């Protein structure tokens, strides 16, 4: 029973993600002006951004998932 459940989940994942083939980008390239603006970056400050994470890590118990990448228009 457990084996069948695992097989089923694997197949479901595979079929589900395969279905992504049909998904079209819902924000067209010509609609990405605002997203391409530098103010829409999740990490605008490079080394300065890394430093402030270091400041917090040294003084707080929590750690990880600081991000640091991403954002922008996806116009690569």
């Amino acid at each position, binding site marked *: 029973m457990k084996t069948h459940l695992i097989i089923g989940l694997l197949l479901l994942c*595979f079929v589900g993600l395969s279905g*992504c083939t049909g998904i079209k980008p*819902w*924000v067209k390239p010509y609609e990405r*002006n605002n*997203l391409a603006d530098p103010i829409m970056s999740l990490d605008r400050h490079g080394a300065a951004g*890394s430093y402030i994470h270091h400041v917090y890590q040294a003084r707080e118990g929590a750690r*990880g998932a600081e991000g640091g990448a991403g954002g922008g228009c996806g116009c690569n």
Partner: protein
Amino acid sequence: MVQGVVVVVTNSSLFSTIFGNTSKTLFFKAFFVLLITVNSILMAADAMAGTLPVDSVDILHHRFDGGGMEIDGPFVLVRKSIGTQVSVNGHYYIDSVSAASIDVVANASEYTEERTEVSAGVDFLHEKTMISTGYTNSEENDFVANSVFFSIGQDFFGDLTKLTMGYARGWDEVGKIESDFSEDVDRQIYKLGLSQVLTKNSLMGLDIETISDEGYLNNPYRSYRFFDPADTTKSLTSVEVYPETRTSTAVAVRGLYYLPYRASIKGEYRYFSDSWGIDAHTYEVLYVHPFGRQWTLEARVRRYSQSSADFYSDIFTHEGANDFLARDKELSTYTGMTYGGGVTYEFGQGVIPHVNKLKLTLLVDYLKYEYDNFRDVTAGDGLLDAGTEPFYEFDAWVTRASITFEY
């Protein structure tokens, strides 16, 4: 466009566990089919294009001033592409520390030291797939840390989605000045990140990170305190005892929205939990407002709060009261606020030959930490009864001034 995602099982015993009593022939057949499917995914990825990080030199001067600590120094980050598929990077970072914090004053004498960190890394781009790896070394007179990382990122859905997975491994050597004390810490880090364009004006990010430590996790200079059995208005101290393992998980979600006028607002929440019993919540809001093409102002507010570790106490009833004993203020219950502002000025192309963009940035943050169960033992010139001292608090200014060249 990605055709599908599969799970590749390369361990035959695991395969048998999943698929029941299966022959090796079936295993290899299935494995071959899965390989073909993976190959088709990579072939599909070939149809897409991507870009490497921009070539740049980032020179930062940082300063932390507060809570008895003064820390400053340079941070230099360089990125350079080699051809169209490879970009290398490296950074050099120094913390010059002058320490007279409450931990130092309560347990030892003031000191100065320097921490130096260097790293080298490489990004390899194949169409929409970015593979990154790197090495970092950090050294101070009583601590050495080495780490390596590997990550892979992939853009999907017409570049609206980016998925990144990473793994890092670290090895620390914990020492103690003027002694031959030496202990090790091993660390493993697993990261999963998702960046998603939601609309033409908004995007979001989701990050999950699990960190596992094993080894000597104490700070060898710190001690816990307990009531003096001969006089309970006073306290004595002894060496802290930490567990030798720690596993933590942090989940963060971020949203960024382009306002109807040219400005953006970012909201962020992070939840953290670890095997020591610490739960933490971080909230941050950032507002960015450009003026023309050259000036950008920003303002941010951040709130951090956490609960104590299970084995934390400001003062224990007696020596060896528990298996584990700690009085690090970083393991107590407290709240931290940050109020920050910044200004950026960008020069356009042509100001300096071969430099596409020159950016000057000044960021100033005011930090305030208030502790709910960590007392200030230095208050009242040490004349107050043990356990009745006021709760500790401190504030600090963090300044970051940087110049960035993109070429």
